[in-house]
C-alpha cells in the first residue's frame, strides 16, 4: 500500500459518524475516499459549505461551488451554505468535531508547524491557525519524513501554527499521541518495526510494551459508531 493511502485510511478510522469534519487541502482531502457515505460525516469546507462531496462529473461543475483550494466540488442532499464569519464561528467555537491537516513539523510538545517556511515559502496561514486552535480534535496526517529528514522533531524549527497540542499524529510509519508526558508511540504501520520508526524520528518517543500494527480496513457503520464513541 502506498504511503498516502496508509495515512488516509488510518485517519479515516478516526472520524465519527454524523460528526462535522474539516479536511485540509492536499493529503487530508483524500481522506474522504475512505469514509463510507453511510457514516454521514459532514465535511465542512471553510470557504463556506457543510455537506461537501466529490468533484462532480465533467460538465456538471458550478463555478460557485468549490472547496478551499478553488477546486470544483458537489453538495450532498442536506448541505448548507454559510458565510466566512459563521464558517469560522463554527471552527473557533468548538462546533467542528475534527480537522485533518498536513504538517511540516510536529514536536515533543505536540505543537504543529504547517504554514510557512520563512524566506522560502510564505503561503499564509489561511484557516489553519483557527482550525488547530478551535477544532475539538486536531489530526495531523503527514509523511513521517520529508526527503529522508524526520518531521517529528524535539522542537519545531519552523513558526508554529498554534500553541495548542494536536490530538494525534498519523504518518505512513506510525500513529503517535502527544500527551502530558510527551509523544507516545501508539501504533506502527504494517510491516514497520519500532526500530524503523525510532530511526526516522528525532523527537523522543515513549514506547509502550506493545505497539500494535495499524488497522487499515474501512469500518462498518456499526463498528465506527462503537469505536469512536469509546474514543470520545
Amino acid at each position, binding site marked *: 500500500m502506498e504511503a498516502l493511502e496508509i495515512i488516509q485510511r488510518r485517519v479515516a478510522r478516526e472520524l465519527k459518524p454524523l460528526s462535522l469534519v474539516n479536511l485540509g487541502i492536499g493529503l487530508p482531502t483524500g481522506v474522504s475516499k475512505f469514509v463510507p457515505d453511510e457514516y454521514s460525516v459532514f465535511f465542512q*469546507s*471553510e*470557504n*463556506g*459549505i457543510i455537506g461537501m462531496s466529490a468533484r462532480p462529473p465533467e460538465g456538471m461543475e*458550478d*463555478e*460557485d*461551488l*468549490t*472547496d*478551499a*483550494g*478553488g477546486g470544483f466540488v458537489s*453538495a450532498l442532499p442536506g448541505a448548507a*451554505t*454559510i*458565510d*466566512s*464569519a459563521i*464558517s*469560522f*464561528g463554527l*471552527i*473557533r467555537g468548538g462546533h467542528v468535531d475534527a480537522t485533518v491537516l498536513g504538517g511540516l513539523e510536529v514536536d515533543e510538545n505536540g505543537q504543529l508547524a504547517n504554514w510557512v517556511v520563512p524566506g522560502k*515559502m*510564505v*503561503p*499564509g*496561514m*489561511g*484557516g*489553519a*491557525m*483557527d482550525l488547530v*486552535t*478551535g477544532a475539538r480534535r486536531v489530526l495531523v496526517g503527514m509523511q513521517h519524513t520529508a526527503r529522508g529528514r524526520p518531521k517529528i522533531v524535539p522542537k519545531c524549527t519552523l*513558526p*508554529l*501554527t*498554534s*500553541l495548542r497540542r494536536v490530538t494525534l499524529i498519523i504518518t505512513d510509519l506510525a500513529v503517535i499521541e502527544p500527551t502530558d508526558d510527551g509523544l507516545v508511540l501508539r501504533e506502527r504501520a504494517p510491516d514497520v518495526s519500532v526500530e524503523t520508526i525510532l530511526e526516522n524520528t528525532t523527537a523522543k518517543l515513549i514506547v509502550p510494551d506493545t505497539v500494535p500494527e495499524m488497522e487499515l480496513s474501512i469500518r462498518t457503520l456499526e463498528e465506527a459508531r462503537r469505536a469512536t464513541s469509546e474514543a470520545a
Partner: protein
Amino acid sequence: MKEAITPQQAAEIIPDGAVLAIGGFMGVGSPHRVIDALVEAGRKDLTVIGNDAGRPDFGIGRLVHARAVKKLIASHIGLNPESQKQMIAGEMEIDLVPQGTLAERLRAAGHGLGGVLTKTAIGTIAAEGKRIIEIDGEEWLYEPPLPADFALIHADRADYIGNLTYQLTATNFNPIMAMAAKTVICEPRVIVPIGVIPPDDVRTPGVIVDHLIARV
C-alpha cells in the same frame, strides 16, 4: 431606486490609494468586471483586503499582477507566485491574517465593535507585537476592526433597492464586507425587479448597498 452603473463608472469613483475590501475566495465570488475595470483604469497604491491573492490571472491576483496594490491584507497568497515575488522584492507589503480573524475584524468594523478577542494565533509570529488582553486569567489576542473605504463585492441576485442574495460558496466574505465599508459597490449576476426577492432570502439588506453594476 439605484441606477445600475458600468464597471468603468465604478472604477472612476475609486481613487488611487483607496482601501478596498474585495469579496471572493480564490476568485470564486469576486467582482471580476470591477476588478478588470480598475486594472484598465490604471489604479495604483491600493490597499486591498481580501481572503487571498487569487491567481495571477484571476480574482485579486489581477490587481496584484497589474502592480496596483501597495498593501495586501489577506490570509493566503500561496496560489499566486506573483504575490510572493512582489513581497520578497519589497514591492508590495503583505499583512497575513488568519482567515477567521480576518472575517471577524471586517465584521467588527461593520458592526460598530471595538475589535476582536480571539485565541487564534496566540504565541505565534502572527501575534508578534500585538496586544494580549487577560480576562479572568485567560489570555486573548486583541485584533482591531478592519474598515474599508469601498467594498467591491459579488452577488447572485440584486434588486434595485440593492437587496442581495448569494449562491453557495460564492458567499464567503461578501456579506461581511458589505457591512464594513463606507461605499458598497456590488456586481450581481442579475438584477431583478423590487419585490421579486422574498424578505427571508435577502442576505445583505439593500439600504447599505450604494451602487449596482449593470449586466453585460
